[in-house]
């Protein structure tokens, strides 16, 4: 099957069977290895991508669904100014997400803040309920996201809360 779609802002075409997973298309065809195939069950978050504006597990997206869609992987997201806010927040807190969980953590933060620039702690806990990164203290994560939110608000509105 020929699958034209937009990948990280560029028009691309993949040739594969309809039953291939998006995560494997990204890794095998486009060599975008930031998206990882771990549980292959939509649970761990390592395969997170932004598909048609939503954060989804790419391990559960079959090839035919990708046709004429738009996919942003972590590599594409790293080119955006929104990513700079997130990295600045981590730098200010003196931590970095581990390389394995980086994709899921960063894209989940973006998904959270793009819908609510001032998420409550319970919203953050709910968003990260299935991401079990052992490298990051959950309490520290709350502070980091608060910092990122302030940075973004300052950039967008010239002020923080």
């Amino acid at each position, binding site marked *: 099957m020929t699958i034209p779609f937009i990948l990280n802002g560029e028009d691309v075409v993949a040739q594969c*069977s*309809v*039953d*291939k*997973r998006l995560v*494997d298309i990204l890794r095998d065809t486009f060599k975008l290895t930031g998206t990882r195939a771990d*549980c*292959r*069950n*939509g*649970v761990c*978050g390592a395969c*997170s991508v932004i598909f048609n504006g*939503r*954060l*989804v*597990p790419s391990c*559960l*997206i*079959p090839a*035919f*669904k990708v046709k004429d869609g738009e996919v942003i992987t972590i590599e594409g997201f790293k080119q955006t100014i929104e990513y700079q806010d997130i990295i600045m927040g981590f730098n200010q807190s003196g931590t970095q997400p581990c390389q394995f969980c980086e994709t899921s953590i960063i894209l*989940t933060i973006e*998904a959270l803040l793009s*819908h609510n620039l001032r998420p409550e702690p319970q919203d953050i806990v*709910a*968003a990260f*309920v*299935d991401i079990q990164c052992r490298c990051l203290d959950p309490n520290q994560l709350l502070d980091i996201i608060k910092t990122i939110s302030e940075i973004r608000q300052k950039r967008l509105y010239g002020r923080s809360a």
Partner: protein
Amino acid sequence: MEDPHNIPHNQVFRPYNLSELFSFWNRFPDAVLFAGGTDLLRGQTKRLFTFPKTFISLDKVEELKKISRTERYLEIGAAICLSDILRLGKIVPEGMVAIINSIGNLRLRNLASIGGTILSTHRYSDLHAILIAQDATYELKSASNARWISASKFVTSGTELLQEEQALISRIRIPISSWSYVFHKKIGLLNRDDPDGGTFLLLCNTEKNLIMDLRMIFVGSKIIRFKDLETNLLGQTVPIGEKSMESLLVNCSDLVASEMAENKYLQNSILRSITVALSGI
């Protein structure tokens, strides 16, 4: 002739409206409907998906993606994903928000459709609790017919009806109502597939310290609606007295034990939830 390379030859149809959908479906009556795909694809961990021979993707069918609201009802197209329902804001019943937030995770809720969740094959979806308790109805649409069926009737005979009539759920209609007290408890693993889990829900309206309306339901591997308790509590004053509470719990305990004879964990969890819920009214 056998394919020596064992390459799957699946057919995927992506109709743009219901008329096209039923036309395809009439030609290929064994085709499987595919919305978010979470129910069909979860549990498949091999590199390639195992697909039905023919399936119809619902992601582009316009009629299944509409949301409308009247004074009395909220109507949601069956292909709307769970996250989009949460984004509707305050018009979504409080109990529904709590239950949707306990289903899967943020990523899965961006994929799973409400129609697919209702038809989940793993066990009765937690969503049934709020839909039954709030007297929701589902529109079953076939090529030649459309009818509405209550959520409570659907769990007993809906799947057979869909197969007999070659129909699908096109809309879910939820009465808009507010409740003075909502209690929701997820039992079992949070945000995970748990065949031994479920959800307990209590909705209550009180006026001048009298219970005017009460709905209580557990949904898991079975659905338990506590109709006797609902009837007994109507008109009772709140808070519920100790003696009344004891007698209610004994009745509930008998019902739960008869329904969940093999599962002590669920029995205890449900009874605990009932105690906490009733104490909070």
